[in-house]
């Protein structure tokens, strides 16, 4: 049985936020939603200040509070460890969001617009000859597929008003044997993804070699995202350079 996990090497992360960008393009999330989020922290007082970074995807907890509180079973955990939202099942009560200590849930407050990033007219025929008809960043056809053995609508999520969405570990890519978009994009290989049951995968070797820690270990959520290097964040760290949606 496959069990997926992710390792985040904070000694390698340079805080470039390319993972956030690739996540948005891959999953077509609406503006202001960051399934993968990279904190940029500042700590200490001048002149003894230090900067640090902390990528925060969904932790895909083994003891997931969001799964427990979901009143209709829309939030569930697959056997391979991935925690998903069935967007056809979700009633939009947002209980998962208040239950999650990591703040990874994003609600579709309004109807996601087709042209949420209106730059170019993707319907232009000349453009289509160059892009083979692909329309980034809106609409990756894979996101419309039913996923996994449960055959539920779980990929994407930024398509429907009134339902919850969050990081899926790019389930539509993982099911094809690909890495999640953030992992595939990371220029410093700070993100490592794979099967932890097989001892020969890069992530298994990585986790065996390195000392790891989990985010908010005290919460007892047993995350499947493990951190290497750095140190757990405290409230002494002040977040700087926050991104935001444009009006």
């Amino acid at each position, binding site marked *: 049985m496959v069990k997926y996990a992710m390792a985040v090497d904070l000694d390698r992360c340079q805080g470039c936020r390319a993972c956030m960008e690739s996540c948005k393009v891959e999953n077509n999330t609406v503006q202001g939603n960051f399934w993968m*989020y990279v*904190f940029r922290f500042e700590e200490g007082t001048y002149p003894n200040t230090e900067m640090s970074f902390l990528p925060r995807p969904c932790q895909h907890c083994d003891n997931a*509070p969001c799964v427990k509180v979901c009143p209709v079973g829309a939030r569930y955990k697959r056997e391979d460890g991935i925690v998903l939202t069935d967007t056809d099942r979700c009633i939009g009560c947002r209980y998962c969001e208040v239950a999650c200590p990591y*703040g990874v849930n994003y609600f579709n407050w309004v109807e996601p617009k087709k042209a949420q990033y209106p730059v170019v007219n993707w319907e232009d025929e000349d453009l289509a000859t160059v892009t083979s008809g692909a329309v980034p960043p809106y609409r990756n056809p894979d996101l419309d597929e039913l996923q996994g053995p449960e055959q539920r609508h779980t990929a994407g999520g930024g398509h429907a008003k009134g339902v919850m969405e969050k990081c899926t570990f790019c389930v539509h890519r993982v099911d094809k044997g690909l890495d999640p978009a953030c992992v595939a994009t990371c220029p410093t290989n700070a993100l490592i993804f794979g099967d932890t049951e097989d001892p020969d995968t890069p992530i298994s070797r990585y986790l065996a070699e390195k000392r790891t820690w989990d985010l908010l270990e005290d919460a007892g959520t047993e995350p499947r995202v493990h951190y290497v290097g750095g140190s757990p964040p405290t409230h002494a760290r002040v977040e700087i350079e*926050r991104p935001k949606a444009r009006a």
Partner: protein
Amino acid sequence: MTSHDTRTRQLPQGVGRLTGPWWAFIAIASAVLLFGVYAYWRQASGGLGETALADTGTMGGATWGLYVVMVEYFIGVSFAGVAIAALARVFHIADLKPVTRIAELLTVGSLLVGLAAVLIDLGHPARGLWHLLLYARPQSAFFATFTLVGVGLLLASLVYLFLGGRRDAAIMATYESRLNWYHRWWASGYTDTGPERERHMRAMFWLSIGIVPLLVVSLSTEGLVFGLQVGRPGWFGSMQAPDFLVLAAASGVANLIVLAAMVRRALGKAGEAVESAFPWLGRILLAAALAGLYFMVVEMVSLLYATPADERLIAEALLTGVYAPITWLSFGLMLIGLAILTRLAAKRAWHVGPLVLASVLVSISAFAERYLTVVPSQTHGMLLPYEIGAYFPNWLEIAVGAGLFALGALLIGLFIKVFPAIPMTDEEEVSAHA
């Protein structure tokens, strides 16, 4: 001992007589309700994004806001109504009997308002109803909200209202009026014979015995909606359930007093019967409000004394930060309310004016307290060092909330014109031909 010929003229307690003030009340309540419906239409078409709600964390908002506060508050209020009615019946407290129907009405009304607020808060309300029936999971603390509270408690209080009203309905059916068919339907063959009375008492007794645990269980789960959240500082803890109950009792009794005073005023002479209940209700409110204050103080002391780092932010926000005005307003109103109640108790004179004032203060305090339970843990309770968030309901949420409140008021207002709000005295006979 009214004779049959007078009965053809006027129904008791102003039933069926639509007065000017009543029309004014209905007009105002309808206008507020209509505006609320318009606001909700805006929300339903544009999405919950029309409200001031926003995601916790990177967006620095509260994902649960005024609507959830209303759910918690009104489900809490519903507790007192049916509990007082049950108390009056199980222990045969004659003084409380005149307010039993008002209490039941309050329960039904506030439950409807609270449950409507649940639906209004959903991103997919229709899907909510349907999927809860198909897939609801007992592991979620929401399970009880819609099964035990939404169905069990609502149905039980309707049954209470129905069975408890049959005798009055039978009396009303002896009057000739356009509502006669309705009263006959409600009376459903009741003739006030000895065995019938006995059977009624037995049914009501067992229903009362059954409903109290149902209340405690279902309302405790309402507190557990918050108390089970380990990831949300300020929420997690076993105090949430009893805290919810105590505050529910205080706000419920306070609302009952206000409603009873309004009914008394509306019914004129006939309404004076409810006055026998005020000393009882006043004492219960005093006890509940004292317990409520106790919980408030204990909470504040623990916040001030030994605060885990993650809860310190919330503590500061509550005591000295952005929520401090609400905190101290809630605390102050509760104190003033208690002072008035204590004075009334000491003088053993439960004057309606000060009692209602105290009730309104306690009620507002309880609402503020619910707000402080729901909101600050979301804006200030992120365990990861996100930016501090902010939330305050916008006009749309307030309009929808006011509309919901008006809906409850409208239901009760309509009810008192089709049925006696105060149970009739034993002297009034049920005519044999009813």
